[in-house]
């Protein structure tokens, strides 16, 4: 029987061994005195290295929401013609830090009528699942925790567990707002997981692998090789994926689980202090994670816009394309913020209609179309990409004309009705 640990817990696509073992054997042992090196417990060292990396990761990733929360407040301020937080630090840069410290010192309130055990456990379930997702995201060349061969499937599985944490939080609070919020959230997440999964499937069909590394490697030829432009169907799949992910992370216009005007704050109404902060951090981490996944699947991951040129990615040997990846991801995060401060909240029935009557049929059509496309163009050639981009452009122009006309009719109809 092959030793599982020497290859990581999941079978890997690339032939490389375990990075922790390599690190111990090549970096640590040569530096030890000879006697110690001979008896050095490699496996124990591997565990220490892995734990160290996990610790580093767990320390760095929460910094991300720190940046994102401030970014959101600044973006919101620009949209509403304000300046946003300006007092703490230069241009208010330390505002989130101050808020975090404040939350640390707040009272940790536990509802006496609720279920104490589950109430205490719920934030950790959500937090752990949100961060487990990051383990499979390739941030750059060789910058990923593990190259699972089932990468994207693992991400879907782990993020589907977040629902359990939400239900746990809502139920154990023993508050009607919490329960309503958690039921809404669960219904929404379970529904939108279907179009999400189906649009991921179109990508998997083209790449013929579930591994995130393989998906990025498949898009290495510059912008025309990105999966979003590869076929007209993946172009639609990207939008379905992105909109469904916004629903997955409960952001406006799909923030019914936290609708302030209806159910206070939804499933985390009863939480305070650091436990509330955990929900908050998890929410922003999720936002970054889904954007990163969208970039990996459709927008070339850490690969650059131009093939073989060191504009974004490619040439950055040290950073392995990390700057390009972060820029693309932040672009999508900004799009999410933009949508939040532009669109009003949907009603429950509209939300469900959008998912079940529009997204899921379109996603099925996309899968069928991708299959047919794969039969017509078994190899990805400049011709197929050209045809695809032509179809996408025609479709966009048609959509623009259609939307413009229907808006025009509406504005003409309005004076007579008023």
């Amino acid at each position, binding site marked *: 029987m092959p030793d599982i640990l020497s290859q990581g817990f999941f079978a890997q696509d690339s032939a490389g061994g375990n990075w922790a073992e390599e690190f111990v054997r090549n970096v640590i042992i040569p530096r030890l005195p000879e006697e110690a090196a001979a008896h050095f417990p490699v496996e124990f060292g591997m565990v220490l290295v892995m734990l160290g990396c996990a610790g580093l990761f767990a320390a760095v990733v929460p910094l991300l929401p720190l940046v994102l929360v401030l970014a959101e407040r600044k973006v919101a301020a620009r949209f509403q013609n304000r300046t946003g937080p300006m007092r703490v630090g230069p241009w208010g840069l330390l505002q989130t830090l101050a808020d975090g410290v404040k939350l640390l010192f707040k009272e940790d309130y536990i509802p006496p009528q609720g279920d104490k055990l*589950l109430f205490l456990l719920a934030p950790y379930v959500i937090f752990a699942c949100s961060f487990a997702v990051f383990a499979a995201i390739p941030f750059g060349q060789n910058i990923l925790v593990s190259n699972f061969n*089932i990468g994207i499937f693992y991400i879907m*599985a782990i993020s589907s*567990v977040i629902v*359990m944490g939400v239900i*746990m939080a809502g139920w154990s609070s023993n508050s009607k707002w919490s*329960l309503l919020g958690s039921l809404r959230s669960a219904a929404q997440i379970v529904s939108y997981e279907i179009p999400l999964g189906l649009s991921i499937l179109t990508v998997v069909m083209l790449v013929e692998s579930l591994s995130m590394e393989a998906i990025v490697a498949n898009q290495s030829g510059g912008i025309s090789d990105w999966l979003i432009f590869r076929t007209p169907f993946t172009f639609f799949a990207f939008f379905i994926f992105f909109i469904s992910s916004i629903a997955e992370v409960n952001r406006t216009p799909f923030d019914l689980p936290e609708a302030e005007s209806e159910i206070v704050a939804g499933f985390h109404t009863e939480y305070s202090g650091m436990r509330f902060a955990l929900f908050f951090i998890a929410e922003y981490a999720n936002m970054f994670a889904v954007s990163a996944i969208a970039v990996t699947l459709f927008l070339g991951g850490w690969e650059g816009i131009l093939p073989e040129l060191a504009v974004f990615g490619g040439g950055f040997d040290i950073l392995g394309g990390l700057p390009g990846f972060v820029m693309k991801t932040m672009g999508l995060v900004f799009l999410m913020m933009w949508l939040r401060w532009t669109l009003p909240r949907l009603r429950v029935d509209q939300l469900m209609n959008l998912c079940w009557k529009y997204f899921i049929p379109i996603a099925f059509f996309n899968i069928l179309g991708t299959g047919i496309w794969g039969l017509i163009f078994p190899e990805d050639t400049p011709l197929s990409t050209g045809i695809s981009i032509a179809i996408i452009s025609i479709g966009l122009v048609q959509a623009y004309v259609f939307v413009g006309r229907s808006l025009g009719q509406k504005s003409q109809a309005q004076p007579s009705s008023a």
Partner: protein
Amino acid sequence: MEFTLKTLIFYGFALLTVASGIVVVTVRNIVHAAFSLMVTLFGVAGLYVFLQADFLAATQVIVYVGGILVLILFGVMMTSGRLEMRIHIERGQLLLGAVVAIALLMLLLAVIANTPQWKNVADDGTQLQPTTESIGTLILNGQFLLPFEVVSVLLLVALIGAALISRKEVRE
């Protein structure tokens, strides 16, 4: 058996599965039982990883935790608003449950005893292989095509049934 880190993690998962399984059947609060079931299902997914069934492990989590368990909890919460949900077990049920459990154990033991060799679908004996591709090939290349299609028709029927039941008015 050589005691390695792998063994330790394996027993960790086994302990997690069995302990939370015991909690599921002994605890009186039905919601606690459901959340404990989540841990059990996770543990089973971990054991699948040790059996080199990576695809199955993720499927286990996605289907059972993300789907079925959520439905169970929905059912519990929709039917009773009370925080204290107690399970009452009649003696007859206990007997019936014991009979079913023993029968299942016998069946499993029989299967284990009669399987000559446990093998990964894609195992070539030397190296760990990803299973996703071979599972897909086995399903769509004809060997398991019929069961696959039957299951898909079954799901379609269930979907139509659910849509029919949840309709507001049923035509005469």
